[in-house]
């Protein structure tokens, strides 16, 4: 089992991602610089959170056009699993690997806290550790996490089981009150049609030990790595 973490100038969760993967894999992932044009042999590619290129132009826009991303898009198309977290999710939408876009949070604030998420899909590779409709907690830390897509796309995501997580309250109510950032249909994470790419705003890699406040993220990574072994 081999994994790669893409590192952009301004990534700041790349090492968190490395620690989380290493803890579950027992081996360190390759750290791949954005300017490289060759990917090492890998069974999983993680696009980490941060502020690639200072969020210039649009979040993820410049990273999405970096040399390594052309290779990542090719690998994704051939079925390699991709985990795109926070800024990584923004990069993935900018490349077109995932539909929609991430807008400024509706309340205009940077939101940094643990949030409740409802697991809304049955994708075994990414959420096999959880029951459908289970409520889990991951941290979020973003200013531009307001998921937007047109009506037709949102309907398709809903209809085809492509929504991984929705923002909810602790009782499982998915509504405006539990929608932290204004995302359409409370969407916190989605898959591509083939189900090999997961993009999500929350950070599973930040909740991988009791010392960090919980292990809901560790469960996520353990399942992901097991499913690929």
């Amino acid at each position, binding site marked *: 089992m081999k994994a790669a973490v893409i590192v952009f100038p301004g990534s700041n969760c790349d090492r968190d991602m490395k620690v989380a993967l290493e803890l579950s894999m027992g081996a360190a992932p390759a750290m791949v610089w954005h300017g490289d044009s060759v990917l090492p042999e890998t069974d999983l590619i993680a696009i980490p959170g941060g502020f690639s290129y200072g969020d210039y132009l649009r979040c993820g*826009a410049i990273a999405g056009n970096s040399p390594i991303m052309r290779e990542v898009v090719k690998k994704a198309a051939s079925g390699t699993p991709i985990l795109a977290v926070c800024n990584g999710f923004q990069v993935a939408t900018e490349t077109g690997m995932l539909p929609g*876009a991430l*807008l400024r949070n*509706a309340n205009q604030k940077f939101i940094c806290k643990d949030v409740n998420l409802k697991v809304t899909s049955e994708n075994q590779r990414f959420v096999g550790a959880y029951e459908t409709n289970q409520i889990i907690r991951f941290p979020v830390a973003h200013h531009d996490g307001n998921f*937007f897509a047109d009506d037709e796309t949102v309907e398709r995501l809903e209809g085809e089981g492509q929504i991984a997580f929705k923002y909810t309250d602790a009782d499982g109510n998915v509504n405006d009150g539990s929608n932290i950032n204004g995302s359409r249909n409370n969407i916190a994470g989605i898959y591509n049609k083939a189900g090999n790419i997961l993009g999500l705003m929350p950070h599973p890699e930040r909740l991988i030990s009791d010392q960090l406040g919980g292990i809901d993220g560790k469960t996520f990574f353990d399942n992901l790595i097991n499913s690929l072994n």
Partner: protein
Amino acid sequence: MKARVTISLKNGVLDPQGKAISHALHGLGLDKIGEVRQGKVIELDLGDISAKDAPAEVDKMCTQLLANTVIENYAVELLD
């Protein structure tokens, strides 16, 4: 030759920054102001690109990088 690209959010796409500007204008007593939408302007020096090729070249730049057509519209103005 230069080009000026004006990028704006599509209708129906929430613009919290535009809303904040609108609130601030109201706070200044300019309460007749209705909706405010914020966009951006990018000026490009087109170097050796000919006037004939410019429209297609700039359009390509817009769709590939400068605008995200999921959420944004763009308009191109070519300047001498």
